[in-house]
């Protein structure tokens, strides 16, 4: 019972001060050209944002805004965001349903290799067993493999910063090219 009450209290406190999803939806009009009308992209090089973790999205926008994550497109867009707009955008995309995994069976050998690499590098410690993410650790399941590969390479080369300590830069530093390819394929549909 205490557990239930605590959970209820937590829900109430969060919803009472959740950012403004509707304001976020309106501000997101600048985003949908690339990230898709429902936050699901058509271009595999661009990440889907639907159902992504709110805190992760907000940190990425902060990194784009202060230049720690470089992008010719996202940099100027994020530069115009206030703290409030940035919070609302995070809340809006987090509120959308996540993309489904792509249809068709992946290469089973590569998929298994990716599964083992994910276990070896302990991805689930932060991204959870279903790779759905938690707090500032993003959902990585069902993301396009093209994007995941690029993200892992960028982390490995310190082209984008980790959130927090002992996170992605450090983990990715030990990844081989083969592991990156296998991980990206596996995470697209971890099953």
């Amino acid at each position: 019972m205490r557990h239930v009450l605590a959970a209820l209290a937590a829900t109430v406190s969060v919803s009472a001060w959740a950012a403004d999803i509707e304001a976020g939806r309106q501000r997101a009009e600048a985003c949908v050209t690339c990230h898709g009308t429902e936050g699901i992209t058509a271009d595999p090089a661009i990440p889907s944002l639907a159902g992504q973790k709110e805190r992760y999205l907000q940190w990425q926008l902060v990194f784009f805004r202060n230049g720690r994550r470089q992008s010719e497109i996202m940099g100027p867009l994020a530069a115009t965001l206030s703290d409030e707009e940035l919070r609302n955008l995070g809340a809006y995309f987090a509120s959308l349903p996540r993309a489904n995994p792509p249809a068709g069976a992946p290469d089973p050998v590569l998929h298994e290799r990716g599964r083992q690499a994910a276990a070896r590098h302990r991805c689930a410690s932060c991204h959870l067993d279903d790779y759905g993410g938690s707090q500032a650790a993003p959902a990585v399941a069902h993301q396009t493999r093209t994007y995941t590969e690029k993200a892992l390479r960028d982390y490995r080369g310190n082209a984008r910063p980790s959130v927090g300590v002992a996170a992605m830069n450090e983990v990715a530093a030990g990844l081989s090219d083969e592991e990156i390819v296998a991980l990206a394929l596996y995470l697209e549909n971890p099953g």
Partner: protein
Amino acid sequence: MKKASFPRRASAVAVAAALALGAGPALAQLKSYDSSKPSFWQNPPPDWFLGDETEEMKGLAPPVGPATPTPLAELQENLKRIKLPPGFKIEVWAHGIPEARQMAWGDNGTLFVGSFGATNVYAVTERDGKRSVATILKGLNMPTGVAFRNGALYVVAIDKILRYDEAERQLENMPKPVVVYDDLPPYVAHGWKYLVMDKEGAMYFNVGVPFNIGIPPTSTAHIRRVHPNGMAELVALGVRNSVGGDIDPRTGQFWFTENARDWLSNDLPSDKLNRIGRVGEHFGYPYCHQGDLPDPKFAMGQKCESFTPPVLNLGAHVAPLGMKFYTGDMFPAEYKNSILIAEHGSWNRREYQGGRIKRVTADPDGKNAKQEIFAEGWITGKQDYAGRPADILQAKDGSILVADDWAGAIYRISYAK
């Protein structure tokens, strides 16, 4: 030495076995480190703060705070849940201060605030009754500690103590700093520091160990006192990482908080409050924790009785940071010379604790120490915070300010009958 049951990198055999058992995506590998050799801290692993995992503590990592400072309305709502003794009141004093850490008053009423990873030093000023926050320094290497003396702002950033003269007159365009002390190791791991100045201008600060547990490399694991002429001494030895201290107004002795090692268990060992009764005392690290617990790997035959025991054990993973002896007249008389301690709260514990302010009373010699919770309510779930107290500073009127580096805010706690 007993080998951990699971190596850091699972062998092919272990993986195959786990696969055969149909393990899910997360295999039950536990991390373990050999931190007994210099190679460990000479080239620290990126996850240096990790230690040998136990099954009960597997996968714990420091939580990442909000990307932006918490908005005022949400802060005010959070403060409604903070429990205080009768007659006390908490309010938002300033907000929009990312990763606010140690605070110091300028002579003319400017509040200087250091920060953690945000690289900034802030100034909070009041003009015509309106309070505003400005970032006055940027790009410093973890400038957590600040102090003020004779018109100058002192900032400690890992391995340098910087002095900015006439700081309050030049907030909009801070002068080039003078490096007043830099005979310090470069480790960033536990290398962030506070600064406490005594009446003569001597500076006390911590030099933490660049890991969780191990044999400390030279020039670490102590409290150092640097005199105004630049001469320095080690006033406390065997200290893992202290993140706050203050001078006892009754005796002039230095008291400090100490964060104990991680990865032993959820409930051991306890973090500590210490007192330096004699210059050069040894407080036990890495051999002995909490005054009575020999380290399972690093006790090396040493007995706990050989070391100075803590004044008080504050609890496991409560993470005591800034502390202050209360010397004001606003709070009830029994608060005089009480110690108020900002507990930052856990990360290396399945269920967080701390994230609150403690009140400790003790005799000048450290005897008869008692603790009670003074302010609590910032922990919002098993592993989440609405705020994390990081430092405490007394204001002229006897109220106290509390820096919160999670919410990026400063609160004021006052008392009225």
